[in-house]
């Protein structure tokens, strides 16, 4: 089946710093989403981005479907950005496959 790899696995940032999270996938996909899992365990949908670039405030994402990767940019990080960021893809059908996540900690 499709492989979804996220990097880095862990990231520590000083508040105000910028970062880039990467998601590589091994086959073509119909759907790609980025989620933020908060400390309470909730999965918050950040972007639905099967291709192209989107921005929402300090966050933006780019997916290059032909090269099978997606990037999530976090600018001017805040302590509330801490948590786990998951990339999730739908290769075909409707089942969503998650990556292992990037655990982000932003220090005040």
């Amino acid at each position, binding site marked *: 089946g499709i492989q979804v790899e996220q990097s880095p696995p862990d990231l520590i940032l000083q508040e105000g710093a910028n970062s880039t999270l990467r998601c590589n996938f091994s086959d073509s996909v119909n*759907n790609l*989403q980025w*989620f933020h899992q908060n400390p309470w*365990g*909730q*999965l918050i*949908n950040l972007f*639905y981005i099967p291709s192209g670039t989107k921005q929402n405030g300090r966050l933006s994402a780019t997916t290059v479907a032909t090269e099978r990767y997606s990037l999530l940019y976090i600018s001017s990080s805040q302590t509330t950005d801490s948590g786990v960021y*998951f990339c*999730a893809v*739908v290769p075909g*059908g*409707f*089942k*969503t*496959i*998650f*990556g*292992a*996540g990037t655990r982000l900690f932003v220090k005040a």
Partner: protein
Amino acid sequence: EPEVTQTPSHQVTQMGQEVILRCVPISNHLYFYWYRQILGQKVEFLVSFYNNEISEKSEIFDDQFSVERPDGSNFTLKIRSTKLEDSAMYFCANPSRGGYTFGSGTRLTVV
């Protein structure tokens, strides 16, 4: 964004007991999914449900699991005889215009 609601938010149960996790999907949606996340691990697909039938299930979804749509709007995930390793966060999800919308999750603790 439309909401998917799950209850309870946290359930503690004794090993061997049956548990029922509930979900209210985006209204009138025919597709429905359950996922599981063991603490510290990735989110894993359990089962997909379409028009009152299971359309796909993973190897995790063995005979102790079942899904139902008891009253036409709510969906349930039943675990018949819980084991310690069933302790996890369980999410339900619906497809939506912005991809997939996940519920807030039920944290199941088996003791």
